[in-house]
Structures are given as structure tokens and as C-alpha cells.
């Protein structure tokens, strides 16, 4: 009797689950936007919530390349960092308004991606990760040495934006809740943009190249160009994330460019589920919440990160969201 009721309930819930997931797939950008608007109501600290948004956006940008195109880059810190530095330099050295600084941050990500992409795309597969890592290390040294512009080892300080002026409105950027929603607004715009790109013919081409390069080529697609353009698009998202980080922290630490930051994007994607729309954000949230929690008890947080990395690769390669999606399909 008990068994009977169990079997009659099980398909029902999985049916509902599947319905929800296909709804989530169709309305992915709206759903994510709604969540980001409600998120500060449940998050413990607003500053942490903003960090989750920024790193989620960064991981999202990385996921375009890794998850959707299937290229593993270990140089994304250069795109993120250049975005942050361009935004910071625009404010501290040139006194530009915040919106111009953000636009320059996006441009920084695009330029860094174009430079690294043009070289790295020439080699593929296993070389790609090595070349992107080496080139990002090169940019790290360049920014490190340009002390007059970047502050070198101490980072770029004084990226202060106190009020956000928009169409006659003055928003108090020091207020944590306003601060959060300003950042969230940009992240939501980015989410809609990404959703649109993925749904476009170009989005289909990206996934086509990942699935079979030979078939894509036979269909008349310029595979090298698709890879380059995708790298640059990824750079725009990462550059925006970097620029938002500069505004959020009011400082650009040199660690932003370090290759550990590239590893962070890989980790967040892997944890959340690569090649899924919500995965990078879920990964960023789990990672940063865990970091905050574990740091209360030990300074050796990196040990947990390394172990989690290994565990994910060995036992959990689809990540949290990817596993949920897969379970619902079977």
C-alpha cells in the first residue's frame, strides 16, 4: 500500500519539477532578475550579496567560453582585472563620471580579450589553457610594474563613487541597499543580454562548434572567427564585472589580475554547472557563502577550495544546477 502510494506520487512530483524547469528555461532572464531583486531580503550581508552578483557575472562571462563554446581559459582574470583597472583609472586619474568609467571597464575587458584571444585562438585544445594563463600572467606583470597608473603592489586606491546621478535622480551609493540594487540593475541587463545572445542564431552556432567542430566547419561556419568573437563577448561580460568590482570595493587589488582569480571563475562554473544559464551564479553563491563561513574557523580556506575542486572533478562534474537538470530529464 505504502509502496503503491509512493510510486503514484513520484511521477507527479517529477512531472511538476520538469514543468518548472522548462518554465525556468524559457523565462530564465526574468526569473534570475526576480531572484536578484528579492535576494538582499534573505542574504546575511548586503556587501556579500553584491560580491555574489559581481563574481556571478564574472563566472557567467567565463561560462560563455567554457560552458557554451567548450574552451577552457585560464586567463580570465586578465579580462576581469583589466575591466576593474580601466574603470578605476577613469575615476581616479581622469575624474570621469561613473557611467563613463563603467563603459571604459567593458571596453577594457573587450580589448584584453581581443589581445589574448587573437594569440590564444591560434592554438587549441590543451595549449589553449596554457597560453591564456601565460598571457594573463604577462598582463599581471604589466599592471604590476605600471605603478604610476595602477598603484602596483598596493592596488589602485581611491575609486570613490558616492552618488549615482541618473536622469536627474541622485542615488546614495554609500547606502548598502541602494548600492546593491545599482549593481543588480547592471547584472540584470547583462543577464538579459546573455539570454538574448544564447537564443540568437549566433548562440546556436557557439554550441554547434562545441558539439562538433567538423560539422560546424562543413556547414560553412568560420570556426576560428566564432571562437574569437565569443572570447571577446566573454571579455565584455567579465570587463563589466570587473568595473562593478572596482565601484563596489572602491579599490582595485592587484590580486584581481592574479591567475588564482582565473581559477575562481573555473571553480564557480564547475561548482554550479558549466554550460547552464543559472550555474555560474549558483556556483558563485555557494563558493562565497562557504568562504565566509569557513573563514570564521580557519585561515586555511584554500585547502577546502582545493579539496572541493578535486571532489567536483572526480565525482560531481556537472555541478549543482547541472545535476538537477540531468536528474529531471531521466
Amino acid at each position, binding site marked *: 500500500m505504502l509502496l503503491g502510494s509512493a510510486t503514484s506520487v513520484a511521477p507527479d512530483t517529477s512531472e511538476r519539477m520538469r514543468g518548472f524547469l522548462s518554465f525556468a528555461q524559457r523565462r530564465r532572464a526574468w526569473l534570475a532578475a526576480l531572484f536578484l531583486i528579492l535576494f538582499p531580503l534573505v542574504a546575511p550581508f548586503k556587501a556579500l550579496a553584491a560580491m555574489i552578483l559581481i563574481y556571478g557575472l564574472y563566472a557567467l562571462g567565463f561560462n560563455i567560453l567554457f560552458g557554451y563554446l567548450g574552451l*577552457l581559459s*585560464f586567463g580570465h582574470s586578465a579580462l576581469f582585472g583589466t575591466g576593474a583597472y580601466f574603470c578605476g583609472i577613469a575615476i581616479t586619474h581622469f575624474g570621469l563620471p561613473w557611467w563613463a568609467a563603467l563603459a571604459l571597464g567593458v571596453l577594457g575587458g573587450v580589448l584584453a580579450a581581443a589581445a589574448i584571444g587573437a*594569440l*590564444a585562438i*591560434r*592554438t587549441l*585544445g*590543451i*595549449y589553449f*589553457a*596554457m*597560453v591564456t*594563463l*601565460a*598571457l594573463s*600572467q*604577462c598582463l599581471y*606583470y*604589466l599592471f604590476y*610594474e605600471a605603478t604610476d597608473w595602477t598603484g602596483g603592489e598596493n592596488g589602485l586606491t581611491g575609486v570613490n563613487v558616492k552618488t549615482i546621478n541618473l536622469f536627474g535622480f541622485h542615488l546614495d551609493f554609500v547606502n548598502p541597499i541602494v548600492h546593491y540594487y545599482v549593481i543588480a540593475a547592471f547584472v540584470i541587463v547583462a543577464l538579459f543580454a546573455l539570454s538574448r545572445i544564447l537564443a540568437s542564431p549566433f548562440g546556436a552556432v557557439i554550441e554547434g562548434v562545441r558539439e562538433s567542430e567538423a560539422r560546424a566547419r562543413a556547414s560553412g561556419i568560420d570556426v576560428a572567427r566564432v571562437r574569437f568573437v565569443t572570447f571577446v563577448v566573454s571579455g565584455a561580460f567579465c570587463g563589466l564585472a570587473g568595473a562593478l568590482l572596482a565601484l563596489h570595493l572602491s579599490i582595485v587589488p592587484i590580486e584581481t589580475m592574479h*591567475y588564482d582569480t582565473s*581559477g575562481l571563475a*573555473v571553480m564557480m562554473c*564547475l561548482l554550479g554547472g558549466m554550460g547552464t544559464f543559472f550555474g555560474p551564479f549558483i556556483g558563485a553563491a555557494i563558493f562565497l557563502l562557504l568562504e565566509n563561513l569557513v573563514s570564521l574557523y580557519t585561515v*586555511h580556506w*584554500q*585547502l577546502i*577550495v*582545493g*579539496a*572541493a*575542486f*578535486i571532489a*567536483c*572533478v*572526480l565525482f560531481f*562534474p556537472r555541478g549543482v544546477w547541472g545535476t538537477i537538470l540531468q536528474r529531471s530529464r531521466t
Partner: protein
Amino acid sequence: MADLTLQLLGLQLFTGIALGALYVLLAIGLSLIFGMLTVVNFAHGAFYMLGAYVGLWLLMHGVNFWTALILVPLAIGALGLLVERTLIRPLYGRGLDYPLLLTFGLSYMIVELVRVFFGNTGYPVDTPDVLQGAVDIGVGYFPLYRLFVIAATVVVLVGLWLFLERTSFGLIVRAGARDPEIVRILGVNIARVWLIVFGIGTGLAGLAGLLAAPLQGVIPEMGGPILAESFVVTVVGGMGSLLGAVVAGLLVGVVVSMTSLFAPEMSRVAIFALMAIVLLLRPQGFFGRAGLMS
């Protein structure tokens, strides 16, 4: 004056070769592992750092330098065996990215474990007594220890060459790099070969770390930059080519020391410029990817 400049250049050339020797040891390990297992070992820098720390620990406990020179590669090699057997082996056949990601995570753990046991700050390491001082090498006085690093690398290279070219196990290794499928069909236990090759590669990284320790001291983060630099060497030389690793390693070492003579602030960027040029002109590197030692 002209004489002095020439002398300076000569000395700097030797400094570059000594630095290049370290790159060669690291890049050969990376290349050997990649050539056989098609695994890019992102933990290679961590094994290098661990070699330096294990060496430091041995020296602190009264072991002499020469014994450490034998023990360190064995210890790091043994750790490599353990890593391959337990962590990397389950990932064969699951795509090239997975072992790479796994070794990246492993490098985090190794670095943090070293911080747990030795702290965040670095230590200087004394040059062994016999190797202190400088000798006249024709163009001027050159530190004896750096000469020793060059000599030790030559000995290791010759040993490796004899091992690969003159032993039956080396024959299997070379054949396995060309076509693992055929080698397996011929009844060779290729899994065991892969295991040992991984151990040799990590052992060489450990040895390079120990040799580098008296030159620059040890800190937990020392493996990061050198990992990126050995990637440059393998890309320039051609992945999977041991000859490429030797030539490119020495070249990169000389480029670093020469730029630090003329434009010190560019010394760390120069090799990446070199890599960019090679990628533009010859994306597969100097020696492409043919079989081992060819």
C-alpha cells in the same frame, strides 16, 4: 670598456643558462607527462615548490645536500605516483580538461598544506659549503653553485636520454608516446608505464625546486610564476618534444637574464613577448609535436 661589456654579456649568458637549466628540468617533466598521458600538469609548479621545501626540511634535520639531492626527487616522484594512481587514473578517457582541472585543485591543496606546516613567510636556503664562492670561467668569475646547477641538469639529461634510448623500458615509453593503442595491443601494461612517467616528471620538478632553493630561497607561492614560465617554454619548444623543451628552456633563461641586464623592468614580460612571436609565426612551437626525443 668594450671588453668589460663583453665580459658582462658573457657572465649574463651563463646566468641565463643556469636559470634556463631549471626551466629545462620543469619543461621536460611537463612534456614527458603530456607526451605520454596527454595530461597538462597544472600542479607542476606546486611539486617544484614542494621539492624546495622537502629539501629545506631535510637540510634542517642535518641531512647533507648531496643526500637531499637523491632523496628529494625520490620523495616528490613517489608522491607523483600516488597522485597518478589515486586521482588522475579515474579520469582517463573523460576529456583533456578534467585532469587539468584536478591538478589545478591539487596545487591549491599542496600550497596550503605547506603554509600549514611552514607558515606563510619564506626562508633563505644556504648554498652548500663546497659549492660556495666563484670560479674563473674565462670571461670572469662566476658563482660555483650556478655552474653546479648547469652540470647537474646535464647529468640528469644524459641519464634521461640513456634511459629512454638504451633501455627496454625507455623503448616502451617512446612507443607509448607515439601510439598507446598499439603498445597496449602488443601486451604492454601501459597503465604502469603512465604511472612511472608521471612519477619521473614530478620527481624532476622536485629536483628543480631543490636546485633553485639556494638561488632564491623558498616561499609557498614560488611555484606559481614558474608554472606560467614553464608553460611558455613548452609552448615555444613544442609540446611533447623533449629536444624542444631543452632548446626553449635555455633560450627563455637567456632571454630573461639578458633583458634584466638591459631593461630590468621588462625582464618578466619579455618571455611572454617571445611566446607571442612564436605563436604568430609558428603556432606549434619549434619542434612541433612529433614523438619523444625526435
